[in-house]
Structure formats: C-alpha cells, structure tokens
C-alpha cells in the first residue's frame, strides 16, 4: 500500500480541483464520488464536467470519454505480459484500476521483479480510494485549500519522469522515448484532445521494433529473421 504514495500525493490536488469544478457545474458531492467510482479516469472526468457545465447531451460526453480513454488499450496490452495465469475474474478486477499512473508504477515494479498481481491490485485500489475521497472533498469545498502548496502539482510529473528513466534499458529505449515525446508534443499542438498519446506511442514503439529488426542485437537477433 505504501508503494502507492506518489500516486496518492499526486491525486489529491487533481482530485480536489476536479471536485471544485464538478461542484461548480452543479454536481452534489455524492454524485461526484459516484462518477469517480464508476469511471476512475481523471482527464475524461474533467472533460465530462466541463461538457456538463456547458449543457452538453449525454451521448457526446460518452463518446468523448471513450476517445480520451482509448490509450488504456495500450497500457492493458502491455500489462497483460505480466498478468499471466490469472482468472478472468481477477483480470476483470485488475482492469478497473488501470490508469496512466498505476500502469506506469506497476509496469516498473513488475519489470524490476519482486512484484506480483496482488501487490499491483492493492496499489490500484489504494490510488482509487485516494482519487474518490479527494474528489468528494473537493466537492464539499476544496476551494478553501490553497492551490499549489509545497509544489504538490509536480508530484505526478516527477513520478512520471523517474518511471521513464527506470524504463530506459538501452539506447533504443532512449530513441523510442525521444521520438515518442517529440511526436506527442508536435501532435498535441496540431490536434485537439489527447489522441496524441496513442498516436505517438504506437508510432514510436513500432519504429523501435523496426529498428531492432534492422540493426538486430547480435547474431541471435538476425537468426530470427
């Protein structure tokens, strides 16, 4: 459970901010908690609340949510490698807790070893609880909590930076990360929404596989061709 603290720390300011916005859009605290429980996806919840506030119909909000959260498809695919021999029920429970943050942290732990699905699941649900509680508190009056205190807004970016470093295991990974980052930044300027995450990651990872094939890693790699 303690492994989840960077995520929880990061969720508190975002959750409070979300609660305040949702409150301003006319949602009661328990309605806010209901959304955090059933959806559990920060950025799409922010967008949904903004759309509710501007009087949008239900279907456009659901469609937008779908597109915004498609990136989890990639994350779950990547996690599947480490979640072998689990029952469908456990996988279904695990799927609920897949977020950008839990994915990044659990993937790193799985790769380092000494990590199993039980711990990963506890981490998911600890983060989930932190998210639900902080959004509800925000709905009750999070505007009284000073924004930006102790640099807490940087908890998640700093966590992502460290997890990115931990994912680098050779020059090819550096190359993939740099290409993905540059593509993502460029796409984010060109297209609205957050499809840039999926687009950039897919292109960069594909290029990584291609480069590994072309340059190989010694004779073993070439024999596979």
């Amino acid at each position, binding site marked *: 459970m303690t492994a989840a603290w960077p995520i929880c720390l990061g969720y508190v300011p975002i959750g409070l901010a979300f609660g305040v916005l949702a409150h301003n859009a006319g949602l009661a605290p328990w309605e806010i908690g209901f959304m955090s429980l059933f959806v559990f996806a920060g950025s799409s919840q922010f967008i949904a609340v903004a759309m509710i506030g501007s009087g949008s119909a239900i279907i456009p909000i659901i469609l937008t949510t779908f597109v915004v959260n498609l990136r989890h498809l990639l994350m779950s695919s990547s996690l599947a490698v480490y979640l072998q021999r689990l029952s469908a029920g456990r996988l279904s429970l695990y799927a609920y807790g897949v977020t950008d943050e839990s994915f990044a942290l659990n993937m790193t732990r799985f790769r380092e070893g000494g990590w199993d699905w039980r711990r990963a699941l506890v981490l998911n649900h600890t983060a989930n609880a932190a998210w639900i509680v902080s959004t509800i508190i925000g709905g009750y009056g999070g505007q009284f909590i000073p924004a930006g205190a102790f640099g807490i807004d940087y908890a998640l970016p700093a966590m992502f930076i460290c997890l990115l470093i931990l994912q680098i295991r050779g020059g090819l990974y550096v190359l*993939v990360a740099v290409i993905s980052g540059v593509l993502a930044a460029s796409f984010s300027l060109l297209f*609205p929404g957050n499809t840039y995450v999926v687009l950039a990651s897919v292109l960069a990872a594909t290029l990584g596989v291609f480069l590994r094939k072309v340059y190989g890693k010694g004779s073993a790699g070439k024999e596979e061709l």
Partner: protein
Amino acid sequence: MNTDYLLLVLGMGIVTYLPRWIPLIFLSNRRLPEWLRQWLDFIPAAILSALILPALVTTGEPRQLNLFQPALLVSIPTFIFAWKTRSLAGTVITGMALFWGAQKVFS
C-alpha cells in the same frame, strides 16, 4: 440524482472499462509472438514520454508551444536526479521542492 446523470456515468464507466479490460482478457494466458512482445516492451517508455513532454513544453487550451515555464525548467534537475539515484521517492520529493521554489521565483 436524476436518471440522465445515472445513465451518463454508467455510459462513461462502460466505455472507459472496455479498453482497460479487453486486452487483459485476450492477451493474458496467451503466448504472444516475438514482435508483439517487443512492441509491448517499448510501450511504457513511449507512453511515459508522450505523457510528459507535451505537458512540459505546451500550455493552454488549445495548446501552444511554451518553453518558458517552471515545469520545463524544473524537469531538467529532476531528470538528472532520477538518472543518478533511480529513486522514485527521492525524485518525487525533489521535483516537488524544486517546483515549489521555482513557482515562488517565477511569480
């Protein structure tokens, strides 16, 4: 709570859950081809970078390029700290402290 809101949240929940669930169910307990394993192996680094960099170099909605912001400045020592120590806790604390300081200087 009205029915509309209930339907909205349930709809959002379903379309969010399915992309999380489908790959776990269909890719777990299955032997994946080597190219797919390699591809999935690159995904974490690619996604993390795709999440981080736009947040550091763009601001606003619609996003605009903005290289003069504390988040980007602070990311440089944060990267170096993470690289040298490989400590998650240390990086988070250091990043927060630097960002707190940078915000005071910038504002």
